[in-house]
């Protein structure tokens, strides 16, 4: 009984009369809506309705919801009649034709209403509709100009929406029921339903410049179908066929009519599926997105935002030249952001999402992203099509995101990959021995780590996507944040952290104080280990993670005031779009780019090859004729350099604005053939941090941490490190270029794999790694520091003794460290004294220690240096032509080998 009563209450009238009541409400609300609406500034006028005019907002909601109900119940009305086969009752062909045309105008009224919002989706919808109409043979252009107009103006759409379409729909209603007035009871119920919907749920409005284009819910099925076909004209043909079938339906024989109706029903169900797919799984650029990803960017169908008709009129009006977002009503005085991210121009929603048209705080802050720029939201925030999409794409492949090199080397020493050049991504780590080792010890330093809190990143808080480098809280911003957290802030005091490209060294330090430790080295600090005793004579400090660092010698570029970003461009840091295996592949800048010996590789600002550099030039108002240095490796412009008419290079510090003249390489660097194989770093690296080795074991009973997930673990890999020294680098050979390069111990380690998995045994590797020490010194290292130093040659620390017996000299080596039983080499050696190294000996397949022939050649010069001062004339001559100088040697000279 109760069910029947409820059914009766719900079925207060037929779908046709509900549609007709809705049409009436829609028409009346449309007339009222014409007062605040301005089609010449469509989006702005609709935004202002939402922001300042609650009454107009209610009218707009009434217009929207009555239109939705009219559309839905019109379709139900058609379904109702077709299912009851009442189409045969209409004998008059003209009347049936008008009803068929009414379906077309129903669609037109709905889509033109969507277009008239003037947001990005509406504007694109107008273009699609115009293009579809133009594809109609013969009359296409006429139809398009009549119903859409020519150009970008919405005048024709507006006129046809308010006049032609509306009148034709009323004619259609009147023509088949001979009245436009529904029953009073039905009308009141429908009005109340629409009023309740309108008071509670806001009619949607997108952003005018959104890249996320999704049509109205009833047309997204067509959008999906358009995506699936390369010939949009098929859609027009399909619609025309459907209408033709409906028009001739009453004339079909009964069995054909039933079949046709079933086909129509099937088409309707297919369209519903298309609609659901489009609504739920299509995101920006109509790409397939998961439901959770799509939730953030998609336009919601039901936006709960009750209209407050009784609000006081004390709301501030957003100035004429500012963006129409409700955020700016409260946060109008937000300071701190640079001109590039000026909230008056770009608003707040572009970065923080939320609801730009809700006027209440809780409603406006709904779905807000407190920390934009994390990789979990970067596609919806910093990396949208209108902003930094290309950089976001590049960053996904950047080594700072993938950690590919670190993973490859780790997997190699664990025997989980045979090649050091395989590429990996940190997010794909599994739970093998190497993966767990990485999760426990290394997986914390990558950009996809999530920044969850506001404020400057703390020492152990790494990653955060774009925030890792570009977000900075100065003292005022930090104070402002604290006031907001304590809820004592007033709008006038708000200071936003800066989002800028002035990336200071401390942003790099947190991650790059690990592994190669280049950030520490650059500023002159060498790590002595966690809790290490302070060395009384040296300047020391304790890092926030309790590691003690000792001052050795800072890089000459740091002494001159240069920051990391003065050399490393965005392509070095955020990637160039390629998935590189190792850092040397990713880094473009080289010493010779600025300290060149020949002609400078430069380019005029007017011919800059990439948009990013062009944008920087534009922001800096650079003279188009100015020349900047191009990196010789990848031809990336160094935008903080300039090359004058005398081919001199000047570099401007990005942080301080200080100018430096970059000196060309000294003549000694290029003199003769003696040192032609040497990289700049081989001579000019003052020191690199060098550990002796470490032992790794998996402790099942020791609680640890999974750095990738941020969760504690019951067991963990533990690393026991040996001594660490700050000494000149070990030299080795890049076998690909035959160049002598700097190296340091990379993976000199023993691993107890058995402790992780039974029967895996133990392993030992002595792999050195190529290094760019970042401890550049102006003077090159001395001749003896290479030719007479066992550490530089790769033998390890100890005493290299040259003995002369008669006319024959010989070298011997006394190592300082004990021999490692795994390979019988001193603990700190890379290769054996006058022995060939057994591969693998490096973390790159192109890197090797000196072979025996090379060792002998180095030591031969070392023998000369035992008697001749390195600054002597003869040694200078030897540098120019070694072979000729040898021929002139006296009888006293005793060479080795």
């Amino acid at each position, binding site marked *: 009984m109760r069910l029947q009563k409820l059914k009766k209450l719900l079925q207060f009238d037929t779908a046709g009369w509900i549609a007709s009541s809705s049409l009436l409400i829609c028409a009346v609300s449309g007339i009222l809506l014409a007062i605040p609406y301005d089609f010449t500034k469509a989006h702005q006028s609709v935004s202002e309705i939402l922001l300042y005019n609650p009454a107009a907002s209610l009218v707009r909601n009434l217009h929207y919801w009555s239109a939705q109900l009219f559309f839905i119940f019109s379709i139900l009305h058609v379904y109702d009649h077709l299912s009851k086969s009442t189409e045969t009752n209409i004998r008059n062909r003209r009347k049936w034709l008008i009803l068929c045309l009414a379906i077309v105008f129903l669609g037109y009224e709905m889509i033109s209403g969507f277009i008239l919002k003037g947001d990005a989706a509406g504007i694109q919808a107008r*273009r699609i509709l115009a293009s579809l109409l133009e594809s109609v043979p013969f009359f296409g252009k006429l139809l398009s100009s009549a119903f859409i107009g020519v150009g970008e103006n919405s005048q024709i759409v507006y006129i046809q929406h308010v006049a032609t379409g509306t009148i034709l729909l009323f004619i259609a209603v009147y023509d088949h029921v001979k009245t436009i007035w529904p029953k009073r009871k039905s009308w009141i119920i429908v009005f109340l339903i629409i009023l309740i919907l309108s008071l509670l749920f806001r009619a949607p409005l997108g952003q005018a410049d959104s890249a996320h284009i999704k049509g109205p819910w009833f047309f997204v099925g067509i959008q999906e179908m358009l995506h699936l076909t*390369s010939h949009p004209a098929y859609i027009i043909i399909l619609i025309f066929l459907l209408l033709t079938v409906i028009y001739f339906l009453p004339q079909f024989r009964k069995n054909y009519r039933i079949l046709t109706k079933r086909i129509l029903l099937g088409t309707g169900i297919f369209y519903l599926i298309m609609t659901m797919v489009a609504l739920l799984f299509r995101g920006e650029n*109509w790409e397939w997105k998961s439901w959770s990803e799509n939730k953030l960017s998609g336009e919601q169908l039901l936006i709960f935002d009750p209209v407050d008709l009784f609000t006081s009129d004390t709301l501030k009006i957003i100035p004429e030249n500012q963006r129409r977002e409700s955020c700016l009503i409260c946060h109008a005085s937000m300071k701190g952001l640079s001109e590039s991210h000026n909230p008056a121009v770009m608003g707040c929603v572009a970065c923080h999402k939320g609801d730009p048209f809700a006027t209440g705080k809780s409603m406006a802050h709904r779905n807000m992203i407190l920390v934009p720029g994390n990789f979990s939201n970067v596609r919806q925030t910093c990396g949208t099509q209108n902003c930094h999409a290309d950089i976001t794409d590049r960053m996904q492949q950047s080594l700072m995101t993938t950690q590919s090199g670190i993973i490859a080397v780790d997997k190699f020493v664990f025997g989980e990959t045979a090649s050091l050049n395989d590429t990996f991504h940190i997010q794909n780590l599994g739970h093998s021995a190497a993966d767990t080792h990485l999760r426990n010890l290394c997986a914390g330093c990558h950009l996809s780590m999530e920044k969850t809190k506001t404020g400057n990143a703390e020492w152990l808080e790494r990653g955060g996507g774009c925030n890792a480098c570009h977000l900075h809280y100065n003292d005022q911003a930090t104070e402002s944040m604290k006031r907001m957290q304590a809820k004592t802030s007033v709008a006038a005091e708000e200071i936003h952290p800066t989002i800028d490209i002035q990336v200071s060294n401390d942003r790099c330090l947190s991650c790059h104080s690990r592994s190669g430790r280049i950030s520490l080295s650059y500023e002159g600090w060498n790590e002595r280990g966690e809790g290490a005793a302070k060395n009384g004579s040296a300047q020391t400090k304790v890092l926030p993670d309790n590691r003690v660092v000792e001052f050795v010698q800072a890089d000459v570029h740091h002494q001159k005031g240069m920051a990391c970003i003065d050399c490393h461009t965005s392509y070095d840091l955020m990637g160039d779009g390629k998935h590189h295996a190792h850092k040397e592949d990713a880094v473009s800048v080289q010493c010779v780019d600025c300290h060149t010996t020949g002609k400078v590789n430069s380019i005029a600002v*007017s011919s800059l090859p990439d948009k990013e550099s062009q944008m920087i030039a534009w922001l800096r108002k650079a003279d188009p004729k100015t020349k900047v240095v191009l990196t010789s490796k990848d031809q990336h412009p160094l935008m903080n350099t300039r090359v004058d008419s005398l081919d001199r290079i000047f570099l401007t510090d990005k942080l301080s604005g200080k100018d430096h003249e970059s000196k060309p390489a000294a003549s000694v660097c290029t003199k003769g053939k003696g040192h032609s194989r040497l990289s700049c770093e081989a001579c000019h690296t003052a020191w690199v941090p060098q550990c002796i080795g470490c032992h790794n074991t998996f402790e099942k009973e020791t609680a640890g941490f999974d750095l990738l997930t941020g969760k504690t673990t019951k067991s963990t890999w533990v690393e026991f490190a040996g001594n660490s020294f700050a000494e000149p680098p070990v030299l080795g050979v890049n076998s690909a270029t035959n160049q002598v390069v700097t190296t340091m111990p990379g993976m000199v380690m023993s691993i107890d794999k058995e402790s992780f998995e039974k029967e895996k045994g133990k392993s030992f590797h002595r792999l050195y790694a190529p290094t760019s020490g970042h401890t550049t010194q102006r003077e090159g290292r001395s001749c003896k520091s290479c030719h007479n130093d066992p550490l530089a040659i790769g033998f390890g620390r100890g005493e290299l003794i040259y003995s002369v017996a008669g006319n024959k000299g010989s070298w011997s080596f006394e190592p300082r460290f004990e021999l490692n039983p795994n390979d019988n080499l001193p603990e700190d050696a890379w290769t054996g004294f006058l022995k060939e190294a057994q591969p693998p000996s490096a973390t790159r397949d192109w890197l090797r220690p000196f072979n025996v022939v090379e060792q002998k050649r180095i030591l031969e010069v070392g023998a000369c240096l035992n008697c001749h001062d390195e600054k002597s004339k003869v040694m200078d001559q030897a540098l120019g032509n070694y072979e000729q100088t040898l021929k002139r040697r006296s009888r006293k000279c005793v060479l080795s080998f």
Partner: protein
Amino acid sequence: MQKQKNISRKIFIRSLAVFSFGFMSWIWYRISSFQTERESRIEFRHGNDIPLGISYFEKYYLIRTENSLRAFSTTCTHAGCRIGKNNENSLQCNCHGSRFEAETGKPLKGPAIKPLQEFECRFDEKTGQWVVKLQPIGKTT
């Protein structure tokens, strides 16, 4: 005497109606054509300092390489949406997902299959400016 053929009022009115409809359709066609052609006659001028790569304007974009400067329409050849810059080498339609190669206008990703319309782009020696007309290449006004 030749029998005079009478035209009935009904036929006359019908003929007049057909004629009027035809005439009005022609006028309608002329109005639309004029509006469309007017747009293709407008000239857009740019200095000779156009940077390498894509320079995006609302209705067209310029693509400058070492050896050439070409102008292409920003209207998607699939369904008429306005395409936007995707990266330094391509343009993206955010309505249905098509992607185009900037240098040639050729589609890189569907549903579009036709290349972007190339517009007339010539260098005016007198003014030292590049002149772009929204006139498809090969057609003259």
